[in-house]
């Protein structure tokens, strides 16, 4: 599970082609690259306890986003549960954000984590497609954040 969460080759398979790049130590660099190689998420490792816990800042690189919305934190926690592991993924925000803005994470994470589970258990990820929700893009635009397209 740790390898799947921290390796670009693994993440490309379950994360819609996105590559996770992480230096697994506190203060290390963290990035998520889009399938075309561009930087999509820029961050830093806040806490790293290999095989157990990883906390990173998870800032989408769209211009103005961090200024307007504050920073995003993503934490993964892994616990043994019998023959399996329990993965708890938490997305938290520095500021209170409305449901339209949070809709992106709420739509994306379940598909990503479901695909991760399929990949680890069957060797094949899911083929679910995902686009940023229109309501999120509209809400970001309204705040003055430049979104792609």
């Amino acid at each position: 599970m740790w390898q799947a969460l921290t390796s670009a080759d693994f993440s490309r398979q379950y994360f819609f082609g996105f590559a996770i790049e992480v230096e697994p130590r506190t203060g290390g660099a963290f990035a998520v690259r889009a399938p075309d190689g561009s930087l999509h998420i820029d961050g830093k490792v806040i806490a790293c306890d290999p095989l157990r816990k990883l906390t990173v800042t998870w800032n989408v690189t769209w211009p103005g986003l961090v200024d307007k919305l504050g920073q995003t934190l993503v934490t993964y926690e892994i616990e043994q549960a019998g023959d399996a592991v329990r993965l708890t993924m938490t997305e938290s925000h520095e500021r209170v954000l409305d449901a339209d803005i949070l809709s992106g994470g709420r739509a994306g994470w379940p598909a990503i984590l479901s695909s991760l589970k399929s990949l680890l258990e069957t060797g094949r990820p899911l083929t679910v497609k995902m686009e940023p929700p229109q309501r999120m893009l509209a809400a970001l635009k309204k705040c003055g954040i430049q979104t792609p397209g």
Partner: protein
Amino acid sequence: MSKPQFVYVIYIRTTAQKLWDALIDPAMNQKYWFGAHQESDWKTGSSWKIVFPDGRVADAGEIMEVDPSKRLVIKWRNEFSPELKAEGYSRCTIEIEPADGAVKLTVTHVLDGDGTKFIEAISGGWPVILSNLKSLIETGDIAVVPIKK
């Protein structure tokens, strides 16, 4: 403040029909639902219950809406824990939508009245049940060792 509620979204590589069958078939239930199973004739207005392997009734209520392979709404009250039963009825909505070679399963569970213990309890149970359900459908076996009741 909004009411405490539980929402879980999971994508499973299967068809809506197969997922529906796994949701309502008692023999399938026993494999992924801590050995428990549901009893109902799955018609609007019919009684519904979850029965532990030892025959005790875990939860009981009524089918409020049923649209096979798509949607199920259950009026649901805990029956085995006086503390949880005291919080009264809840509403559990189960929705199935096709999603690119997989299906999206959404479970939304809301307490009718006030209280936090029931939602806390089901928040511990549903992720294990739904993870097991996904593993069972995709691999033929559950991944998590059942919790002993």
